[in-house]
């Protein structure tokens, strides 16, 4: 392969693909769970870059926005907060290894069937036409989502809202005697309600009378 024939996108692809594979390996080999989660973030990010090379800009940016920006932050919180004993995690390694190998084998076989099959490949699925310069992936997607698939889209939104409310209700426990303050009440308070002015007559100075024998006696 001649280097000058290599286009820049191809170079980018190999770079991103290499990083993705390395990061994915990091996820399963890292001793520290926090390092594993951060490797997963890197894997997500570089696969997002590969999608960007495929001109799927909305998908690529969404994975950064949603998975890296929100979901993985949550993961990281959980992993950081939970005290994980790395040595104990490794205990069942040999016991679970056969099961893991079987699952991995099945996955590899499935992928090989699909990717090597005659339904998939350049002959069956030709490369798409390069998009025009003013082609907007996001606009296209939005158009489909809000016209043809509006019903499914709104249904998904409804389900998510229900899920959100359910999650809040499940974890919500109303504490009795909580000292929560209501800012509206705080703002609306009047000086009168907090401060009462009393008129207290001034105390008289104790009168000190000189006594004839020289010592002073205080009389109240």
């Amino acid at each position: 392969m001649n280097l000058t024939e290599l286009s820049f996108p191809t170079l980018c692809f190999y770079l991103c693909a290499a990083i993705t594979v390395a990061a994915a390996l990091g996820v399963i080999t890292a001793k520290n769970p926090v390092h594993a989660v951060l490797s997963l973030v890197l894997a997500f990010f570089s696969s997002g870059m590969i999608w960007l090379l495929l001109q799927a800009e909305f998908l690529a940016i969404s994975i950064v926005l949603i998975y890296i920006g929100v979901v993985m932050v949550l993961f990281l919180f959980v992993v950081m907060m939970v005290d994980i004993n790395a040595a104990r995690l490794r205990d069942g390694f040999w016991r679970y290894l056969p099961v893991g190998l079987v699952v991995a084998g099945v996955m590899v076989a499935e992928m090989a069937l699909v990717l090597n099959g005659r339904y998939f490949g350049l002959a069956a699925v030709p490369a798409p036409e390069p998009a025009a310069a003013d082609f907007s992936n996001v606009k296209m997607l939005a158009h489909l989502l809000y016209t043809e698939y509006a019903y499914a889209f709104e249904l998904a939104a409804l389900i998510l809202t229900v899920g959100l409310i359910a999650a809040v209700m499940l974890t919500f426990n109303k504490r009795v005697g909580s000292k929560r303050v209501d800012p509206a009440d705080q703002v609306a308070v009047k000086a009168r309600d907090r401060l009462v002015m009393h008129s207290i007559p001034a105390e008289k100075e104790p009168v000190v009378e000189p006594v004839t024998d020289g010592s002073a006696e205080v009389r109240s």
Partner: protein
Amino acid sequence: MDQILQPFEAFFGPFWVLIWTLVKIMIIVAPLMGAVAYTTLAERKVIGWIQLRIGPNRVGPLGLLQPVADGVKLLFKEVISPTKASTQLYFLGPVMALAPALVAWAVVPFDDGLVLSNINAGVLLLMAITSVEIYGVIIAGWASNSKYAFLGAMRASAQMISYELGMGFALVCVLMISGSLNLTEIVQAQGQGWFAEQGLGFLSWNWLPLLPMFLVYFISGVAETNRAPFDVVEGESEIVAGHMIEYSGMSFSLFFLAEYANMILISTLTALFFLGGWLSPVGFLPDGIWWLLGKAAFLLFTFLWVRATFPRFRYDQIMRLGWKVFVPLCLTWIMLLSVWLFSPLSIWK
């Protein structure tokens, strides 16, 4: 221009795109870093004047060499890492804090056509990049292996996640009336309308019809950058310096640079989204990059002004403002706006 670049392009082959982009990036980042350095001086000067002090005036004329002196001092300080810190991540933290603050500039248009990458999904990219900023804080807080640092990181990330919502919703309103995710088109859309035709362009910018969203965006921006009055993250009376507590020398100054770079970014973005970017406020003056710089500089001054004026919020007040004030306000405004857009009274036809 193309004639001059032709031999270079032939020489570098497939790497030419990379090299030419790197050159453009340097043209953006170098002045930005200069601006960051002088923002630190401006902050000390402005707050000094507000508090009837003089501010730094010893190094160079009017103290103008102060940022250079600070930079040199930080460079020569020893970089220390705590014994039980996770060393690689400990030094990755400040890098992750600064990098997104610089990456976001890729889609910022400085003038009509003067932009590094004029992509269609510019706003989405900005939101994605700013959501990555949080990693610098979390990684730094965790890798320091210190309680204060971790508490600071927790506070910072909770605050950043909360205020990202407000910023996102405010941007949704901007998108709805511009009908585009491209920043250049968003600015151009602000130059149209009845007022713009009368030569009073500043009245057709987004800040007027979206006034609540303008405020929400800017206040959320202040909170997002963890600046006063939302600076519980590094509230020195409670948790010393938050996630930066264990850092020294250059690794600390990277956080510092990131904070100021983010301030400049938020100011510029607010100017682009709501104050018409490079558009001139009145008809008889030409449009140009100086308007954008001027607007961004004014908003940057507001950051400093706010810091010198308001006392620090309590943590529950910050959360309340983000979730119980801004989010309902934004949702209401989105609904009102969508009705307005399709009503006969719409001004965006």
